[in-house]
């Protein structure tokens, strides 16, 4: 396969790594909700898409730069997250996993179809102007887009902020204590219902941040939620449940796998069986790498919390 020599490996790896930052951002909200209240939010992907539409509404109404919409969407989603947990999800928590699973599953279907009814099935994308196409040249003929770099930097800063919150603040201490033993945490004066609601608020605030970046980078439609849930889920599992920086590594491994899938695996297979290259190879390769890691290391690369 001589054509492999023509693959721009450095570029493939860098692009994959940078997109991994976005997946890690997607994963933060999922991971936080699971870590603190053992809640797997099936509607996570649809909430990402909902945030993207909210950003679109804000941008269309005010004409502001898409990145500035973060200032509106993030606090909005914090409040929504708090209310969602306080008014709905808190009532599903208990020994059985069925209620939270099925309620968030129901919410997922509701959000998806509401978006479809309100906005139609057209794909949308936010336009961030010159920033989207700007790039810098690295030594060795590699150019890197400014915007992917920004996304990756935001992911690093977000994970750092979350690390600070969890390990250096009173609230973070309470989160970790509740995660260990919710009953005893109540005895320490912690109001679990309030704390869970704060956790969901924070989870959705990070989700909103991720969603605005996502809506500039990729086009989206009402049905885009599930695949984003799956990406977030794969990043979390690859990295190891409950491990913050493992999540980043999980995102990067997923991103690089997809990048390789699109530029190496897909074309190789297509050449072998003589068909056209399909864009789906990116996602498919990511899934397959995820399954392989699940077989080889079922607890992920940096296991922390055991369920």
């Amino acid at each position, binding site marked *: 396969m001589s054509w492999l020599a023509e693959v721009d490996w450095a570029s493939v790896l860098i692009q994959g790594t940078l997109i991994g930052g976005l997946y890690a951002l997607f994963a933060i909200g999922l991971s936080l909700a699971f870590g603190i209240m053992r809640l797997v939010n*099936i509607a996570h992907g649809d909430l990402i898409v909902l945030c993207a539409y909210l950003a679109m509404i804000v941008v269309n109404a005010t004409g502001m730069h898409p990145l500035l919409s973060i200032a509106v969407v993030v606090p909005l989603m914090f409040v929504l997250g708090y209310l969602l947990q306080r008014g709905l999800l808190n009532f599903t928590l208990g020994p059985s*996993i*069925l209620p939270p699973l099925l309620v968030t599953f*129901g*919410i997922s279907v509701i959000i998806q179809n509401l978006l479809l009814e309100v906005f139609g099935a057209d794909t949308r994308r936010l336009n961030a102007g010159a920033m989207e196409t700007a790039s810098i040249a690295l030594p060795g003929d590699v150019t890197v887009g400014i915007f992917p770099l920004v996304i990756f930097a935001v992911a690093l800063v977000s994970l750092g902020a979350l690390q600070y919150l969890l390990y250096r603040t009173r609230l973070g201490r309470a989160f970790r204590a509740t995660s260990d033993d919710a009953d005893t945490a109540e005895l320490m004066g912690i109001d679990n219902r309030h704390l869970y609601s704060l956790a969901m608020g924070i989870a959705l605030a990070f989700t909103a941040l991720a969603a605005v970046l996502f809506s500039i980078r990729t086009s989206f439609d009402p049905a885009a939620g599930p695949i984003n849930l799956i990406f977030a889920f794969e990043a979390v599992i690859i990295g190891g449940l409950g491990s913050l920086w493992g999540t980043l590594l999980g995102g990067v491994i997923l991103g690089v796998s997809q990048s390789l899938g699109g530029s190496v695996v897909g074309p190789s297979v297509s050449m072998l069986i003589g*068909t056209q290259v*399909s864009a789906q190879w990116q996602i498919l390769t990511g899934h397959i790498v995820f399954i392989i890691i*699940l077989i080889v290391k079922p607890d992920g690369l940096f296991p922390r919390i055991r369920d």
Partner: protein
Amino acid sequence: MSTAPAFTTRFDVERSTQLSRVSAVIACLGLAVLISLPWWGETGTMRLIAEMAYFLALAQLWNLLAGYAGLVSVGQQVYVGIGGYVLFATSDWYGVHPLLAILISGVAAAVISLPMALIVFRLRGAYFAVGTWVVAEIFNLFVAQVPQLGGGSGYSLTPEIVRSVAADRAGREMLMYWMALAISIAVIAFVYMLLRSRHGLALTAIRDSEAASESLGVDTYRTKLMIYVVTALCTGLLGGFIFLQKLRISPEAAFSINDWTVVVIFMVVIGGIGTMEGPIIGLLIYFAMREMLADYGSWYLILLGIVAVAVMLTAREGIWGLIGKRFDLHLFPVRRRLIQRPDSDGKPG
């Protein structure tokens, strides 16, 4: 082990109820009416009944999996899709008669489900759910890469294969209708027998407390594995049948989470998870809503979602749970009930 005390009262283990015997008779009569439908009903009605039949079977299977074995899968569409594609591949590539191919669909789904279980069983609880979904997506994307299966846009059965089922359209409609009834009833009867068997007891124990049943010697892993594979077998059979009826298959239709899993989950949850009666109630509610809101796009899904969320929050045992508990009704008695009776000497207990 005998639990019967020595005097004054006698205990019997009862496995059916008065109501269940009456309803069994009514069900037989109803079935006779349904079987005769092709001679007096319209094609549209036949199709609707057939659809209801296989959805009921899918719902009972998901209920068995999630409600009894605690395996909350949101990836069961993978076995519908595998069943459908295996039917198309065997009849198209190897000339297998489509009716035989349905059986092969089921077997193929079961065979594939075993290694898949070994992978997804590594994930617990809700993560198991998402894991099954990823596996379904892999199949969906993979099939789309295979041009011999029509790639991403799908393909249709050839006219020769269609004619091999029945010579004319009317004959095919009739045959498909009866087959829908037969396969669905067979699947439901199978689930029922399974729940009444030794395995059913083990399942109920697992549902109530996995740790406790483990300590009583129930091999939960093997029981769950068995249920997963058996469910895949039946789902694959149904998938083969469904796409034989549709005559056309595409990855999007075959591995659709909305069509084969979302609505099925809603039926079970709304009707009452962990009972056999629940899915029937859920089925009726689903079809009633779908028919009534047919002109309003996907609003019926939104409404179903809201109802399902409300049921989960307020009445976890579903609508049947509310009715059945209040009146102590059991149409499908899968339990063993200890009945206390005055003994033959007539002394009260």
